[in-house]
């Protein structure tokens, strides 16, 4: 009976479930380590973690053709790089501003790029990257390829003018792109209700005749199913799609955000904790007894140790040489030098 029920509920193979569990833990520990690094002064500037939002990458990036499809997002980008298969030491090194970083320390946490893996950033201007995303999809169509572009943007970014301009052109030209609005209910310290006239952000796609919907983003398995369905549609139809995913930001806006009481209560956070993606996954595993408690804990500490090793390796990477400051301004020349 229970087994059957379990079987019924089971919408992914045990191997898949374990994969998602590992990836979720991986991101969770990686991000916690980033916050530690930041507090230790090993990372600087603005640093934004993905804690609580893991299904948006675990569910979605596992549903695309990695390295073929295009992925682009804003500054909350560690999870995207990790799941696309970027070298985690290079990711951590970049966050720590080392020469071993993906951009040799020139980009930092907000600007992770790994073009070979299909990661086109990593951008700091809220909303600005949505137009670039349109360009990635435009290129795929121009070349007659069936690549899909995933463009992640926040609920706050969904108010930026350039996003609407891009939606219009994507609808007008039938570009194969999925705009994933990560609705984590806050734009920095501003609550959704205070920044959006209509808090159902998915409707913004409809005004341009674009298929649009709002879905849950806490349940990894559900996210995976939705991702497969929508990505399949976009790849087949070659049309744009807007999906608003309801999630929650458990951490502060960024590592420097040290007074969350300004915009939310601990009670509110607790309420959402009940649907913490990691907890939902763990419950699911237990309910369907796919793993023993022991194994789950073993995996947890195994990953925690791996992240420690990654951190150590990154911390061993040197800072770039002073004269690298002039590299990469142009592909073929140097800028005027000196002060």
């Amino acid at each position, binding site marked *: 009976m229970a087994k059957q029920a379990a079987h019924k509920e089971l919408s992914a193979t045990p191997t898949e479930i374990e994969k998602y569990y590992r990836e979720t833990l991986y991101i969770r520990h990686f991000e916690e380590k980033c916050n530690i690094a930041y507090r230790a002064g090993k990372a*600087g*500037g*603005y640093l934004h973690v993905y804690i609580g939002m893991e299904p948006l990458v675990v569910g979605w990036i596992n549903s695309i053709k990695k390295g073929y499809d295009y992925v682009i997002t804003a500054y909350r980008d560690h999870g995207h790089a990790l799941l696309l298969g970027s070298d985690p030491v290079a990711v951590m090194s970049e966050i720590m*501003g*080392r020469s071993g970083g993906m951009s040799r*320390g*020139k*980009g*930092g946490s*907000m*600007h992770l790029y790994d073009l070979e893996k299909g990661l086109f950033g990593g*951008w*700091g*201007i*809220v*909303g600005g990257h949505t137009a670039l995303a349109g360009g990635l999809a435009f290129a795929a169509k121009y070349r007659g390829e069936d690549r899909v572009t995933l463009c992640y943007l926040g609920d*706050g*970014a969904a*108010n*930026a*003018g350039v996003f609407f301009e891009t939606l219009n052109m994507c609808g007008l030209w039938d570009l194969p792109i999925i705009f994933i609005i990560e609705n984590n209910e806050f*734009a*920095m*310290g*501003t609550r959704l209700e*205070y*920044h*959006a006239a209509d808090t159902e952000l998915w409707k913004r796609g409809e005004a341009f005749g674009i298929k649009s919907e709002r879905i849950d983003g806490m349940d990894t398995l559900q996210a995976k199913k939705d991702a497969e369905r929508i990505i399949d549609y976009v790849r087949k139809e070659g049309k744009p799609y807007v999906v608003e995913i309801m999630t929650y930001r458990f951490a502060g806006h960024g590592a420097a955000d040290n007074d969350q009481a*300004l*915009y939310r209560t601990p009670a509110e956070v607790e309420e959402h904790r009940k649907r913490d993606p990691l907890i939902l996954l763990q419950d699911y595993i237990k309910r369907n007894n796919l793993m023993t408690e022991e194994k789950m804990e073993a995996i947890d500490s195994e990953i925690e140790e791996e992240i420690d090793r990654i951190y150590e390796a990154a911390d061993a990477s040197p*800072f*770039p040489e*002073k004269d*690298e*400051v*002039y590299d990469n*301004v142009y592909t073929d020349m140097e*800028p*005027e*030098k*000196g*002060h």
Partner: protein
Amino acid sequence: MASTMTTYRDAVRDCLIEEIERDENVFLIGEDIGRYQGTFKVTAGLFERFGGRRVIDTPITEPGFTGIATGAAMTGLRPIVEMMTMSFSILALDQIINHAAKVHYMTGGQAKVPMVIRGPGGAANQLSAQHSHSLEGWYAHCPGLKVVAPSTPACAKGLLRSAIRDDNPVIFTENPGLYSIKGEVPDDKDFTIPFGKARIAREGKDLTLVAYSRMVHVCLAAAEELSAEGIEAEVVDVRSLLPLDTETIFGSVKKTHRVVVVYEDWKSGGFGAEIAARIGEECFDDLDAPVGRVGGLNVPMPYTRNLELECIPNDKDVLAGVRKLG
């Protein structure tokens, strides 16, 4: 005149409070300036104190809310727009230079835009390429705008009050590195500093250093080191880029015969070039050496700290610039 030791941040904040209380038409508008107190906490406590009518949190829409502020100003309100960082004002440039700065002219004087756009300009600490712009030079190129960049708490308060009471759009650039510096600030609620008046931050007879905003402090540090070598540098704090007080600048150069213009912005095409060009034109016969310039490196701002520090001029770079004069 009674004064109080105040941080640059509080000097700005106090002025905002005093002017909101003084004039019903004054209001603040920007991102996360209310409930969140402002990213650099310049507006801390103001939302609680004055409410959502006078302190307005906006969606992330620089073009939109800058335009809304401009339209409101055309009816006589006096908006003070906060750019979370001046870098983001790039998105609103069309609204600022094509609408706010020009409507007085295009209407033949009918419309006025009594608006202030303020926020931190320049590099903070590892905010990377998209968040570290110095834009004051671009703004100072635009007729219809006034542009100020105070270096001390007192200047910040006196110039901000003038800006708020001015009937033209004013760009008021602060600097992330200045918010915590302290200085005596006059208590007088009507204390203002007029635009177009530079300040002699340090007197000297051998050499002139011209700067604004945080670079004034870099120049003062360099001046101390020069002094140890027996070279007395005069430091001119421009304060207001548009209008520009060339009289004071030229006066100092005519006295010292040697000058270096220092600015954080990308060296090539920065406003320091305009200042240098004017000195070259007007002080030709007084110069014993070419007009020197020390500016930021001509590269996008890198994230990692050691490279970032390479880009921003410091006292050693200023000294090197002085030595180059020979």
